[in-house]
């Protein structure tokens, strides 16, 4: 019935918290939501899930000293009801159609492995084919260690796939939610057309513990928060959860209401292709 806010330690009535989109009514702290809960951002009943049939494997036969990768996957699947960390589909926001991906931090820290990369690549290609924008909602600890370099390479793979979206002139809007680190911060969301973050979300490349303990640097209060990222020019805006629908809906309308068709950047493609390389 009652939930304790992690930020202000106050007890909040659960129903009141749900009605407030899991934002603490006492202090405004944005609590984490599961990928499924994020679907409520879309117009009611507009979401159709895609690529739910893609399942993780153990490509390296990862030799773990603790719990095996397979065991970890099964536990995470049971805990979240998801086959892997990323939920993908198409839906609408304020009547505008878009493709959507959402990470679920409860699934192995929403780490990016093969399934994450494939689902996101398919979402980008699907959005390009359908001529609709892509919204990615990103939270992650980084690349999934248990898939080694295959996981690292997903950073390049999804960036590749997103160029298809750029080719057809559709925007990629990235929403960064708490926490977002490592290989995810260092790839597709950081080069999105618009980057939005929730208030107080922790966003960075290297983790704070690494910087403090290994590099032995003192970190100021508010380091690597959404507000810090805004101040340093890394994101476009910090938007409260109850304003997200309106903001994203407006952006989709603005990008969609162009009067001129999108032209590719290189009209002399054939000419350049004919010049032999030095």
């Amino acid at each position: 019935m009652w939930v304790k806010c992690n930020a202000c330690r106050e007890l909040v009535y659960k129903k009141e918290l749900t009605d407030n989109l899991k934002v603490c009514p006492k202090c405004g702290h944005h609590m984490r939501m599961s990928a499924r809960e994020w679907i409520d951002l879309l117009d009611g009943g507009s979401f159709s899930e895609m690529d739910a049939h893609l399942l993780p494997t153990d490509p390296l036969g990862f030799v773990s000293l603790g719990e095996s990768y397979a065991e970890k996957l099964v536990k995470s699947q049971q805990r979240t009801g998801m086959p892997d960390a990323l939920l993908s589909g198409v839906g609408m926001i304020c009547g505008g159609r878009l493709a959507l991906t959402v990470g679920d931090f409860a699934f192995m820290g929403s780490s990016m492995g093969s399934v994450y990369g494939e689902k996101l690549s398919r979402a980008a290609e699907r959005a390009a084919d359908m001529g609709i924008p892509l919204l990615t909602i990103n939270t992650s600890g980084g690349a999934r260690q248990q898939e080694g370099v295959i996981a690292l390479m997903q950073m390049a793979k999804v960036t590749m796939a997103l160029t298809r979206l750029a080719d057809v002139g559709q925007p990629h809007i990235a929403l960064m939610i708490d926490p977002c680190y490592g290989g995810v911060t260092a790839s597709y969301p950081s080069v999105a057309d618009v980057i939005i973050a929730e208030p107080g979300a922790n966003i960075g490349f290297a983790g704070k513990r690494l910087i403090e303990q290994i590099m032995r640097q003192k970190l100021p209060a508010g380091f690597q928060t959404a507000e810090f990222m805004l101040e340093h020019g890394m994101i476009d805006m910090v938007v409260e959860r109850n304003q997200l629908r309106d903001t994203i809906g407006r952006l989709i309308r603005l990008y969609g209401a162009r009067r001129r068709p999108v032209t590719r950047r290189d009209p002399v493609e054939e000419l350049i292709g004919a010049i032999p390389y030095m």
Partner: protein
Amino acid sequence: MDETTKLTEAQELTPWDRVQMARHPLRPHTLDYIAALCEDFVELHGDRRFGDDAAIVGGLATFAERTVMVIGHQKGSDTRENMKRNFGMSHPEGYRKAQRLMRQAEKFGISVICFVDTPAADPKKESEERGQGNAIAESILVMTNLRVPIIAAVIGEGGSGGALALSVADRILMQENAIFSVAPPEAAASILWHDSAKAPDAARALKLTARDLYELHIIDDVVPEPGGGAHQSPQEAITALGTRIRAHLDTISQIEIATLLNQRYQKYRVIGQYAEA
């Protein structure tokens, strides 16, 4: 030493042994390769935004009778040099300099050769403030659709996103004792088992050797090193790699650019293993 003895010796090396060889301070580094393989190297400096990062070097040079843009992480061979080079750990300025040089290569129709040799991207507070995540992401993006041939050669440590930022290429070559890893083994062991001393186990589990990555179809070529490793006979290692880079460059230079870009797309698009229920 004939091929058979070489192979037997190589098979006895553990992944952790190879990590040590990849990190050997006397192993040839990027500027050694450029000096030995290229002529007329003109180093270009700065990202035009903030500064010049000595952890990444780059510039124009002549390689195999053509002008190329060479870019690479630069480690030092001693402490003083390593302080200057930040141990090959690039700051955002380094990646942004690399992007500038790559765009320039595209502008002039010059092929790009990248030498990859970094433990990881610089993880300090200042790098975070200047957008390390964005810098790496931009580098990856620039390389995905750069309209000139790109070759990446891993000559030591290919560590994490910091290495990937110079490794999105039409061909990825690795020297036999080089490593390429999602994270440095110490960091992976710390993330996975909360104990960085378990790094040798992580090195084995991560499949970070050239041979492993060739079998996983991540890289295109494993370049042999002299017996005992590249540091035992740098000149031999450099020549062997130069020969392979030249061969690959000759091949991909023949490919029409639209086709090459499609091949580059497919090369990365198919990486990953999953089941379909």
